[in-house]
């Protein structure tokens, strides 16, 4: 999988490196498969020499690195227990409750725009489309004409008696 910067434990390495610099070797190691050699540095007690000029980007000595005391810090608090619970609370209430239930609620909102008088407000369009598709499917399956030219059923219309 992703090696180097993304590897497991790389976060801890980076976190430590941010304030204390990269870790040094204490014993000499020679690879058996290649010519790689890792050795302790020749000059004893050598660290990067103190820079003579302080840059803006130098780490602020007053900055606390939350990863030092708690390498698994989630960034909320120094206390690991409070930090862990804060993370859990945010994820549970933020994602599992609000985003999930909220999205479900919004997704199932009724068809917008005046259910009462749909024609005026251009409403119930999604319902109208679904209903039309359902009726077309039914009528085609049963061999009925898709639409009849009569708006109303002619047998139900009662005309007045012809008066001469």
């Amino acid at each position, binding site marked *: 999988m992703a090696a180097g*910067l*993304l590897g497991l434990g790389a*976060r801890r390495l*980076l*976190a430590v*490196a*941010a*304030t204390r*610099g*990269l870790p040094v070797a204490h014993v000499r190691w020679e690879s058996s498969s290649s010519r790689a050699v890792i050795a302790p540095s020749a000059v004893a007690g050598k660290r990067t020499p103190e820079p003579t000029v302080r*840059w*803006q*980007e*130098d*780490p*602020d000595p007053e*900055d*606390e*690195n*939350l*990863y030092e005391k708690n390498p698994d*810090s*989630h*960034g*909320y*608090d*120094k*206390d690991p227990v*409070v930090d862990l*619970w*804060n*993370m859990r*609370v*945010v*994820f549970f*209430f*933020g*994602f599992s*409750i*609000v*985003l999930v*239930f*909220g*999205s479900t*609620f*919004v*997704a199932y*909102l*009724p068809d*917008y*725009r*005046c*259910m*009462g008088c749909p024609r005026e*407000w251009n*409403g119930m369009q999604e319902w109208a489309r679904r209903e039309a598709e359902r009726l077309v499917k039914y009528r085609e399956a049963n061999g009925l004409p898709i639409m009849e030219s009569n708006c109303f059923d002619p047998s139900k219309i009662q005309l007045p008696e012809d008066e001469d």
Partner: protein
Amino acid sequence: MLKIIIPTIMLIPLTWMSKPNMIWINTTTYGLLISLISLFYLNQPNDNTLNSSLMFFSDSLSAPLLALTTWLLPLMLMASQHHLSKEPLTRKKLYISMLILLQLFLIMTFTASELIFFYILFEATLIPTLIIITRWGNQTERLNAGLYFLFYTLMGSLPLLVALLYIHNFMGSLNFLMIQYWIQPLPNSWSNIFLWLACMMAFMVKMPLYGLHLWLPKAHVEAPIAGSMVLAAVLLKLGGYGMMRITTLLNPLTNFMAYPFMMLSLWGMIMTSSICLRQTDLKSLIAYSSVSHMALVIVAVLIQTPWSYMGATALMIAHGLTSSMLFCLANSNYERIHSRTMVLARGLQTLLPLMAAWWLLASLTNLALPPTINLIGELFVVMSSFSWSNTTIILMGINIIITALYSLYMLITTQRGKYSHHIKNIKPSFTRENALMTLHLLPLLLLSLNPKIILGPIY
């Protein structure tokens, strides 16, 4: 509406009486639950309003803004946890109380049905914001920033008070729901022209309009992260919301009174976008980008067509989430290098790839990539302004290009390229920061799937 207001008020005793190690957990939890309740108001069945009481109502315009406001409080709390960690306990609680008070005033502003009530709360939102900027800002310029912020807004809104009192006298009531039915066309006279100006200037300053925008870069840059978030995401939208409400009273004067402001907005969009290309300060870049996006909203509201209103509403919500996310990203940089200069933390993609993914998505939504709601908003506004006058498309087109240019400039400068060797001192991203970005981004992406709830009452 009380089901949102009372829990928000009760958040204040919650912060003061919680155990010291539980204040953040408690407030974030209940803040998230309040945002869940506010989603109920998105169920707007028709063009009409949902009237909760004599004082509060919710509309298809105010419900999304309400949801945005309540969603933002837990996000602000999460964003502030780190920079407040070294403060004494009372000061932390005070900060949280200011945020909650601001949230309360904003909820009431968006749902107020009487215009004087709206005005009082509109002004009241200034006070917690001023306290947050001037007390907890990081640089000495914060005092100047607070001054600019306060006085620009007050100068604009004092005429609004006079105008509202006059309208109340004249019409008999300022209940927004009632005056909708009593409106008569405003005859063209000098005093009515001044009435129009008095009503609109407060919101123009708040949006902000290009000529009156000087407070915004100062306030956004000097405010702490929660201040920047709420300023960019919600307080600017107060201006847009107010304009959309008050223009119903001011017809037909808007037809010709709008011209100077349209010119200022159309030109100002391009100017502020171009300024973004020359910024070295990251927060300043995002602040000017807010001015540019809000200029589009001003154009849309002044045109007063159905499409432009839909675009304005969508753009307000989209910009709220995007801008807030960009400020959170800028803050994650600031907490590491204690500087807002972009080039000091460059090439971050190699070190923090997940954060780079959030940067990419935020920049893409900022430049209105399809199919996000940012695009829907911008596109509706561009189309309606084209139908208002064909020439505006040239200016809008130039603005879209320059928006893309500076969004990508910001992305490339901070994320791509060769890192400086100080990058080894940058700590890895916290879960808190990644969660914060996701909580900004997911609603934005989910809304792209169902934008009809944010298209406002005209949809």
